[in-house]
């Protein structure tokens, strides 16, 4: 899947380009069509179907393209809007056009219910839920015949205007709705909300860890994907003047939605609309040619399979890729400085009011008490207790499988403990969601770095959110102030030149540094580093140590899981040693090295060999 670059980061384009001229021309042609060819009902109808599919595919794009949650029941929103209008119009005698927005309201309410079911679930569950939802709506439509008219369907009043007007009002209303829907996706993509959705698509756990309140985002994305389809459904019902459950809650309409969005380009702004312009005519042709209905389905299924196999990115990104390859406009970043500059380290100022390094022995910032985590029969963490002093650099070591990373997962909220408590600054946080812990100043890195690969380095660094505010959702994805701050932080880790580069192009060590810069955006009090020196070139290790030290001087507390003993013993001022899921020893680095229990459990075997190998990883 492809993401459009966030517009705020891209350079401003001039207003008069070939692209814009083309759009203006296409728009003018669509607006003029019913006026120039008022008698051409067939093509007007085809265009109306295109607009309806365009609205649906654009909506689907928000949930599937941006958020990565595939829905196979998207057409249910069309049916909900259609039935809302179809049922109401016989009770309140006003124009269905005025009732259509209520179709949107009903679709939105149902979307909230639908979205709520994925607050705790992942993509595969959403596929199933949406199929079930669509069939449930159809079944209610068919079975609750007293309310919905059952399989006989509902007839809507005929339009009051004269025959000369034809379908023009439907045409313009649905064209406007398609443009509105496209405008909405464009706007979403450039907001904080949209960036959060893309972050969820790329790596949902990571998104939660940096303060994206994923549950709310997912519900809102479902609503955004459905609301305009509901409105379109109302108008579409009026246009059809007859609706029935099988036609309105049709999974084959979902097939067309998926195909249109994929064909045009998933995650792009105009892709779904382009797809609708291709799929509806294809539908007309196969429906006309094929006497047996099977041919129609066969062609659609086959084309969908072919698009997934051979054109997974869709037309717009593929063509754009060709154009860019021809222009050779991409800068060869390899030639740029790939090892960070070694500059005088002055860490950028962190959270206002943080005490400058009280050092070890300060009051406890993180207190872990009696933590237990079981995976089936395996107890990975078994009564783990320790505390981390504010301002300290605490090393957490132990043999592989001793439960270090699981402790990190429990502290950061990726997992819930079976027992035990976690307190941050005196407040119990073990029941909080990952983002709530991030808001309280807890940040973590991952053993294998987890940047959002398709976002740029700059977008990665500005993605974290220090708090959740509804008012923040529609804000620009990257504000000027945030961009400046991000540059400052990137400069601090020596990667200021890499802002516009996609994150997947970075080396492993560079990713670690960007991930650190990303965390600093949260202005955390406590950072959990999972193997900061693991798998990176030795030249960078010194650089990373210096960076950590400089941040610690500003008052930032660190807990570091690391297998590189010389580094961690030299860097840290307090040590915790884990074995078999609990802390077996703690103290200064010197004291740890001579502790019998530690030598027995761990250093006894590894440390000597390691000392001999002078810092090689075990």
């Amino acid at each position, binding site marked *: 899947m492809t993401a459009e670059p966030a517009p705020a980061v891209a350079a401003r384009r001039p207003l008069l380009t070939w692209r814009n001229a083309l759009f203006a021309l296409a728009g003018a042609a669509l607006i003029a069509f019913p006026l120039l060819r008022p008698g051409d009902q067939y093509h007007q109808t085809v265009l109306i179907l295109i607009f309806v599919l365009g609205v649906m595919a654009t909506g689907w794009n928000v949930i599937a393209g941006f958020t990565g949650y595939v829905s196979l029941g998207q057409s249910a929103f069309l049916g909900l809007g259609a039935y809302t209008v179809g049922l109401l119009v016989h009770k309140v005698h006003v124009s269905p056009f005025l009732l259509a927005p209520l179709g949107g309201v009903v679709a939105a309410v149902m979307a909230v219910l639908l979205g709520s079911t994925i607050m705790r679930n992942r993509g595969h569950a959403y596929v*199933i839920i949406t199929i*079930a939802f669509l069939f449930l709506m159809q079944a209610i439509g068919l079975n609750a015949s007293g309310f919905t008219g059952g399989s006989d369907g509902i007839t809507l009043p005929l339009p009051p205007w004269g025959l000369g007007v034809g379908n023009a009002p439907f045409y313009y209303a649905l064209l406007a709705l398609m443009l509105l829907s496209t405008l909405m996706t464009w706007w979403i993509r450039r907001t904080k909300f949209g960036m959060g959705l893309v972050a969820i698509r790329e790596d949902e756990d990571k998104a939660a860890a940096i303060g994206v309140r994923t549950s709310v985002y997912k519900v809102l994305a479902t609503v955004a994907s459905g609301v305009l389809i509901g409105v379109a459904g109302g108008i579409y019902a009026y246009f059809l003047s007859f609706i029935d459950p099988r036609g309105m809650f049709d999974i084959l309409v979902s097939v067309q939605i998926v195909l249109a969005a994929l064909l045009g380009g998933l995650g792009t702004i105009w892709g779904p609309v382009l797809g609708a312009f291709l799929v509806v005519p294809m539908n007309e042709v196969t429906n006309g040619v094929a006497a047996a209905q099977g041919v129609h389905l066969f062609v*659609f*299924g086959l084309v969908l399979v072919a698009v*997934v196999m051979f054109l997974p990115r869709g037309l717009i990104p593929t063509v754009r890729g060709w154009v860019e390859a021809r222009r050779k406009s991409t800068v060869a970043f390899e030639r740029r400085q790939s090892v960070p500059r070694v500059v005088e380290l002055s860490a950028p100022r962190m959270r206002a009011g943080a005490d400058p390094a009280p050092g070890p022995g300060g009051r406890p910032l993180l207190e872990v008490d009696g933590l237990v985590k079981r995976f089936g029969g395996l107890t990975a963490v078994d009564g783990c207790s320790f505390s981390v002093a504010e301002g300290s650099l605490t090393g957490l070591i132990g043999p592989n499988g001793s439960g270090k990373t699981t402790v990190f997962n429990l502290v950061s909220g*990726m997992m819930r403990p079976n027992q035990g408590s976690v307190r941050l600054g005196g407040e119990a946080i073990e029941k909080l969601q990952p983002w709530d812990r991030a808001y309280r100043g807890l940040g973590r890195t991952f053993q294998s770095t987890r940047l959002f690969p398709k976002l740029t380095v700059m977008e990665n660094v500005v993605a974290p959110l220090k708090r959740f505010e509804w008012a923040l959702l529609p804000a620009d994805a990257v504000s000027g102030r945030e961009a400046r701050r991000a540059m400052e932080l990137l400069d601090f880790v020596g990667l200021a030149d890499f802002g516009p580069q996609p994150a997947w192009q970075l080396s492993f060590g560079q990713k670690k540094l960007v991930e650190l810069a990303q965390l600093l955006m949260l202005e955390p009090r406590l950072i959990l580093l999972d193997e900061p020196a693991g798998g990176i070139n030795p030249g960078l290790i010194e650089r990373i140590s210096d960076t950590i030290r400089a941040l610690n001087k500003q008052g930032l507390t660190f807990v570091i899981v690391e297998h590189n003993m010389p580094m961690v013993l030299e860097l840290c001022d307090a040590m915790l040693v884990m074995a078999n899921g609990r802390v077996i020893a703690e103290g200064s680095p010197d004291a740890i090295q001579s502790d019998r229990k530690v030598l027995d459990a761990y250093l006894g075997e590894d440390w000597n060999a390691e000392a001999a190998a002078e810092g090689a990883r075990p």
Partner: protein
Amino acid sequence: MTLLVQTILLGLLIGGVYALFASGLTLVFGVMGIVNVAHPAFLVLAGLFTYELWSRLGIDPLLLTLVTTPVMFAVGWLVYKGLVARVRSSATSMSVVLTFGLAIALEGAMGMTWKNVFRSVTPVYFNQSFHVGALVLPKAQVFGCAASAVVLFLLYLLLTRTWMGRAIRSASENPEGAHLVGIDIGTVSAFTFAIGIATAGVGGSVMSILYPIFPASQYVWISRTLGIIVLGGMGSLPGAVLGALVLGVAETLTATYVSTQWSVVVFYVVILVVLLVKPEGLMGARMRKDVVA
């Protein structure tokens, strides 16, 4: 009272057959994380294939499983190698869309071949019953349930007692680790997928006796099998059996005491409620990667 016992008994027999229909779906999800939306289409395909052979040759449909099963195994292998394997590296959402496209294309192909007409396989016993006291047990239902039990038992033996079974289970728990100890993930995946579709071979033959079959009946089966594996816990084979029995009984109870129209709604409601309240289902363990806080 007799009606209640009769209803529950019938529900259990139906559930037993449902377990067979859903087993391949949950197996493939458990090992590969793919919701194979096309699984019910393969069930219907095997059913129509059974119909074709039965109407031409007059061989008993349950005996025909010896033909349909290997054929569907081969189909599964080819579909995996030709289609599924090629998109597995991209986002899992793409493989769902792929199987969705496949389901639609299969329905179309079946419509072109067999037309949209209801087909039923009617061996002599299809409308006969066993009578136990006041209870009536339709023979076809009992035979279908027995076939299901045999297949599920063989599947259980395969997974627990053979090298391939261990390879499948290790690949489902930890693909990287399995690869490290020398398991060829590509072959194991192809084998699993083929086994999954092969169960649809038996399932389709059984289905052809018990239910009228036509291409679009795949949608009913999509709902039923998905409901079963969601309730049981996605990826869990014992869960699928339990989910199938529970839903078989729930469906017959609804059909008897409410109405047949609403009985299929049970499955939709179960899917929505289970995923909202207890996403891991009855017997599914929440995997590490599934945990959303």
